[in-house]
């Protein structure tokens, strides 16, 4: 098991290194620079500013400087928000993004699993039908359509919740979390339903029932653990979905999280900030993928010897 984790961690580190290198060079190769969209300034001033950010050096040297800084946990100053370091900006945005992302995963997991089980136990019943419809809606209507529609209904027309921002405490959390959770509820309930139906047909369930174990206990102890394996495997992709979604959510609901920062930084060619957020997102995603693999390997020993 330790060997397995070590191998996965090593692969993850390689992936992260590849991602960071690729991002660095793609950013430098993309047309335009951090100061090409600002007001016209004299060439001398421009040269001075670029020298201050070491942008006049050859790309390889810049890369070396970046890696050196990274080893000292220093991502450098943002080229856009002059007086802030990348660390400051990420530290200020991360709490918003994490709060929304965390609650969205929790809500999606709970509701998704519950809907899936309900659907599997009463196949083709009313709940199953409703859950199915709900699932299709969640998958087919994109966040950036459903978000504004919810804003319109619940904030502008009914006035129950704030339109956006972060001013109203937990009430400003509800809309972003619900909208971000919707597509994941849909995926999780579908996954749970199919795997639950499959598990209920397994021989060991029949054995458990034949031994005289009660229906409820069989369900909780025997079927659920088997049925949740594919759902656990979805945590990795779900993290990716949450990251993608949070960029949209923060744009729609005007939340000052790091998702929106990333898009702005990419558009403004704020090289250091892009690198910082890429590192964070990539690291998070890779860690969650490894975590998922480890949990699955722990639940299902057959997977440990794969590859």
């Amino acid at each position, binding site marked *: 098991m330790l060997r397995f984790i070590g191998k996965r961690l090593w*692969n*993850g580190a*390689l*992936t*992260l290194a*590849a*991602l960071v290198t*690729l*991002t660095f060079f*793609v*950013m430098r*190769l*993309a*047309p335009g620079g951090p100061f090409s969209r600002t007001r016209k300034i004299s060439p001398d001033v421009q040269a001075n500013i670029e020298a201050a950010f070491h942008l006049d050096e050859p790309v390889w040297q810049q890369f070396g400087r970046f890696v050196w800084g990274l080893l000292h946990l220093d991502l450098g100053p943002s080229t856009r928000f002059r007086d802030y370091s990348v660390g400051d900006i990420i530290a200020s945005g991360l709490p918003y993004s994490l709060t929304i992302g965390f609650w969205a995963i929790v809500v999606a997991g709970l509701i998704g699993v519950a809907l899936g089980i309900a659907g599997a136990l009463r196949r083709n019943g009313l709940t199953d039908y409703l859950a199915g419809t709900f699932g*299709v809606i969640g*998958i*087919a*209507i*994109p966040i*950036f*359509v459903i978000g*504004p*529609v919810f*804003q*319109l209904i619940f904030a*502008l027309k009914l006035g129950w919740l704030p339109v956006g921002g972060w001013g109203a405490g937990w009430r400003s959390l509800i809309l972003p979390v619900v909208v971000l959770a919707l597509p994941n509820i849909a995926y999780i309930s579908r996954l749970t339903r*199919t795997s639950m139906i499959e598990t209920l047909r397994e021989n060991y369930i029949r054995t458990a029932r034949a031994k005289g174990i009660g229906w409820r206990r069989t369900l909780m102890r025997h079927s659920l653990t088997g049925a949740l394996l594919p759902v656990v495997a979805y945590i990795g992709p779900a993290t*990716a979905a949450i*990251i*993608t979604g949070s*960029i*949209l959510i923060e*744009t*729609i609901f005007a939340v000052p999280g790091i998702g929106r920062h*990333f*898009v702005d930084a*990419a*558009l403004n060619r704020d090289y250091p900030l*892009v690198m910082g957020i*890429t590192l964070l*997102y*990539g690291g998070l*995603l*890779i860690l969650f*993928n490894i975590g998922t693999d480890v949990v699955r390997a722990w639940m299902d020993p057959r997977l440990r010897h794969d590859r």
Partner: protein
Amino acid sequence: MTADAAGSTSTLHLQFRRFRQNRLAMVSVAILVLIVLACFLGPHAFPFTGEDADFENIAAPVNLFSIHPFGTDDFGRDLLVRVLEGGQVSLSIGFLGALVAGGIGVLYGAIAGYAGGRLDGLMMRLVEVLYGFPYVILVILLSLLFGGGTIALFAAIVFTLWLTPAVIVRAQAQSLAQKEFVQAARAGGMTGGQIVLEHIVPNCISVVIVYGSLLVPEVILSESFLSFLGIGIKEPQASWGNLIQTGTSAMDTDLRLLLLPGTLLAMVLFCLNFIADGLRDAFDPNDR
């Protein structure tokens, strides 16, 4: 060769017959065809394009019997025509993108799976590394690298979406490579390339159809996602993504700007998902 072709078409026939019996999927196909036709033929019914401003009718309201059935936007551009033209962009990127990404993935996977050994290990290592990347970051960076615009968007989306078909086809190709008919082909003197193209790829066709149909909504969604964020298709060219974005900023005063493109996009995604489900049920009945 002929006997083989006849055999595979008859299975395909059977599978498509099963697909045709799926009423939901067939209705979805019909609606999708209607939307596609409307987007590509509809704009020709109007004497102006979606980029022409009508200064007499700026921000005209919905009036089904006027020249602008769904009104105009703040620049006097006809909303219906803009949405239909945006549909042309979104749909073509969707179908072409899925085709190209699927094609690359299938070839890559087939080669890796057939070759096996070290080449396979190397090729799959690359896929694994790319898989670990956050998809959004990659797609945003690549569309910046290619300088924005339709082609850049297309390239970025294709570059990020060929991975899943590659992995799926590789697994299939690996088991096919052990089959007797492939060994026979090799003994008969076919080169590796010929075997991949003539035996491996055709035998993966049903898997490819099923997963290819899932790629189309994914590509359309990526396109509108990026255009919504202001990275993909830019004004004055219309796409569903940037139309929805404009609609969002004006939704408290004028809902049509959001609802018209939003509804069409959602309908297309609904249809594509139902069709993909239908194809999956028809093509691999074990997967239930």
